[in-house]
């Protein structure tokens, strides 16, 4: 059996940099930009970290959830704040589905009697 028994492996997060082994200049640009994105700016590093945590849940990336759960703590958030951020992500995902119900209603109204 392939040593990769699962699609996701915790250790792979630490190997993220290997993506630059091919198309290195593109990876360099990405990682430099990535680092700059999360620096203190108009938003604090803590605020950016908790946005990242929410987005990680929206895109359901296990690497990002692992990384930004730790990062949010290290940036000074507590579990209550992090949980509320995940609810924001879930609300937007849920709302995005539900608001399409209007499209459904438009279609039904057009062809229904």
């Amino acid at each position, binding site marked *: 059996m392939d040593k990769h028994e699962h699609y996701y492996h915790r250790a792979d997060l630490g190997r993220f940099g290997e993506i630059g082994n091919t198309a290195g200049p593109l990876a360099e640009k990405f990682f430099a930009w990535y680092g700059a994105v999360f620096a203190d700016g108009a938003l*604090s*590093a*803590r605020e950016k970290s908790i946005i990242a945590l929410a987005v990680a849940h929206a895109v359901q990336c296990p690497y990002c959830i692992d990384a930004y759960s730790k990062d949010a703590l*290290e940036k*000074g958030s507590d579990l*209550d*704040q992090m949980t509320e951020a995940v609810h924001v992500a879930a609300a937007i995902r849920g709302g995005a589905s539900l608001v399409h119900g209007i499209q459904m209603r438009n279609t039904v109204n057009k062809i229904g009697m």
Partner: protein
Amino acid sequence: MGRHLPTLHERREPLAAAAVQLQRLHALALPRELDACLAEAGHQPLLATKVEVLQLNVGKRCNQTCRHCHVDAGPDRTEVMPHDVLVRCLELLDHSVIPTVDITGGAPELHPEFRWLVEEVHRRGRHVIDRCNLTILETGPYHDLPGFFAEHEVEVVCSLPHYRATNTDAQRGDGVFATSLRALRRLNEVGYGIGDPKRRLVVVSNPVGAFLPPNQRSLEAEWKRELRRLHGIEFDALYCITNMPISRYLEWLESTGNLSAYMDRLVAAFNPSAVGGVMCRTTLSVGWDGTLYDCDFNQMLEMPIIGPRHTIHEVDLDALAHRTIAVDRHCFGCTAGAGSSCGGSTT
């Protein structure tokens, strides 16, 4: 108030012994050794610059038993700095220009001669720092301390892991957050925390878990805004301090399976530019029995200053000013990330 966790000492845990703590740290396979890291930073050996702070650990007795305590302090501890050691510390001030005396513990206010010590240091024109757990100010005999602090221009450096309750009570005991807020309000009432340099109020945050502290410069404005918005409390500065992998925090790291990953995190986060500002370079730490140390952490690991004259009774300040600092693996705690010291980050 809340849960009482017995100290390692009270439970007669082997980990109560400094030698056992060092053994546990030495048993770990670390990705890098401290000496190599210090050499990379241009600080091998690590040298003191001058003594700017005389830090007195006046005893291990405390009204709290916080889970992360590096002193293993608690109500059962009986170590108290005797009068002759206090007198010798004051004599050292008389024969030096050390500008600051930093009083810590335990809860230093529990020392029977605490107020006398503060009065004597203040009378000598030296700046006094009290490392306060806040809840002691809400305890009967100590209720008037905010006024006493204000009268003697004591800088109050107090512990509050977060501006919200959850983390504080998890680390320091049930109900500690609410009690701490009451103490902070009373400090505000006597003029602390509103920008008066003679009534300086500093809040110290330690991580509640196995992770590094946040950047204090990044968070200070938010803490000020949120403590004011949520609780109507003012303060002057935020220090974010890394938890040292010793004593009760070491026990917690081991018992939760976090020790190896935490040490790896500290080593990976070694910051060469954080080394220059570590507190041991400008601090002389005095233990309750008069033994001299480079810092309070070395004190708890029973690693006295290097050299033959290592008690307050035989101190030679000129020799100590540029001494070689005793270091070990726990020092990775002070050199990680933004660096950590009794004055918060070092970068």
